[in-house]
């Protein structure tokens, strides 16, 4: 199921980015919400029960998006170590190093370690950070109220920072 979402999300992302033709090298942002909604509509149209609700789909999609982004970060990091081409591109676009592939890979790894300590908080990070769900959506998916969710978010962030501490 995650795999289906993985492919659909990538396909939609391709289309979104190609629709931006003419902005070469310019705006690099992507409307994640629109992306996920479109992928959902496509998948929901094809099957009746698998995708119960948009919120549920977004929960599945968050795992898929984590995979997509981490896969890309890995190959970017490898490319940078290997060829030096990406380094040039980085300089050209003056992308902050905090947004480099290593930062994402570190968070991903920390999130995996967090899952050993508290699976629930790791899932929260997956939904909100990797899946881009809002507070309300995350609370609905996890079945907690918003206040609890806010407190959990503080704890998740603190544990993640602890895991990432040098």
């Amino acid at each position, binding site marked *: 199921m995650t795999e289906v979402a993985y492919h659909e999300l990538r396909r939609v992302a391709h289309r979104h980015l190609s629709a931006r033709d003419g902005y070469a090298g310019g705006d690099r942002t*992507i409307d994640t919400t629109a992306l996920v909604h479109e992928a959902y509509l496509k998948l929901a149209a094809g099957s009746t029960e698998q995708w119960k609700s948009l919120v549920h789909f977004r929960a599945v999609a968050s795992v898929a998006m984590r995979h997509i982004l981490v896969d*890309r*970060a890995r190959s970017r990091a490898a*490319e940078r170590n290997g060829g030096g081409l990406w380094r040039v591109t980085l300089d050209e676009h003056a992308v902050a190093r905090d947004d480099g592939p290593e*930062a994402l890979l570190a968070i991903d790894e920390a999130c995996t370690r967090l899952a050993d300590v508290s699976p629930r908080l790791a899932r929260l990070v997956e939904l909100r950070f990797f899946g881009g769900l809002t507070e309300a959506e995350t609370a609905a998916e996890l079945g907690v109220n918003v206040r609890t969710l806010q407190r959990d978010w503080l704890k998740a962030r603190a544990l993640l920072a602890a895991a990432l501490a040098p």
Partner: protein
Amino acid sequence: MTQRPTDARLPSGERWHLIEPLLDEALALAPEARHAWLASACGDDVKLRHEVEQLLDACTQPPRRAHDIDRAAATRFASFWDEQPDEGRFIASIAERYMIDGEAGRGGMAIVYRARETHGDRSVALKVLRATASGSSAARFRREIAFASQLTHPGIVGVLDAGACDDRLWYTMPFVEGDTLRDRVRRDGPLALEKAMPVLRDIAEALRYAHERGVVHRDLKPGNVLMAGDRALVADFGIAKAVLASAGADSRIRSEDQIRTATGVGMGTPGYMAPEQWTGERSVDLRADLYSFGVVAYEMLSGQLPFRGDTRQTMLTAQLAGRTERLASRRDVPPILDRLVTRLLAPRAADRPASATEVIAVLVRVQEGLVRSRDASGVQRAVRAIAASPATLHRWWRGVRYGD
């Protein structure tokens, strides 16, 4: 905004079961009441109190920018959606001319796809500059297209079509079905002399043609020789330097022995490239290709490389010493071919043949020799057959007289 790293450490799952309820309670209190409450809740377990306090600190501190998870990953790392999408975008925009079947290879600078003509059914190899390529790579790719386009020869995998699509430079070459020479030698071992000669001749003719146009291959090796049936095609004039262009000279075609590259960078494949390419010094010219051609010939006929070494240094030392087992001692190789290969493998470019034309002249003589010996063996067969049976003699004689 403070950005000091947290002192907290990630607790074990077991420890977290103790810490989490305390943390929850503390967070529910007003900030100024938290520490006093924690002190009483933990009693004399100073270690626990310390751990909870550090995590409490971390909860109330804004995260370091690098660790910021408040902004969704897909937004914060939006550029990561890019390269794959760029490929999708490229594939979509080239679709009116070519349908991409799959990826055939990927290098630092370019990606090669296997594709079919959309309006036609020719299979092509489509090479496209990577989306992340730098400006200098683009310039080199452009040069590569320009030089390869000049080469139209049956022994060279040439450029069919080129263009820019979605800001990406691309060109197509015929997709050659079949093995490379490397695959063939690995699978079947050394080639018989009669099989090897036409292949060597094809490669040499391709080199002559390119050299006459000022293009040096610089990376000739069995992996770059495509076998289409019995014909050999030289592929990937990719790192070819247009000698005339880099010399900044006029576009007049010069005689082969005047051609020199003035570039100092050693490019090529260890084991196949000439010693002067290793050291990257002075002039690398068409005689570097002739050296590589010598290595290819040696490998085809013996199944082995003439020089071996585990490191760059030992390989270069062996190449500079120039001593290798003579081909003639191994097989039915005629002495003139053996001498040619030895000359091609000379460590000093000046000691090698001066041009592919000179090499071809020797190859032609070897091929003529093969034909003569085949004719001779045909006569021998006839004589043996005649001796065996008078009836055969009669048939043979009729054949000679009446052309039966």
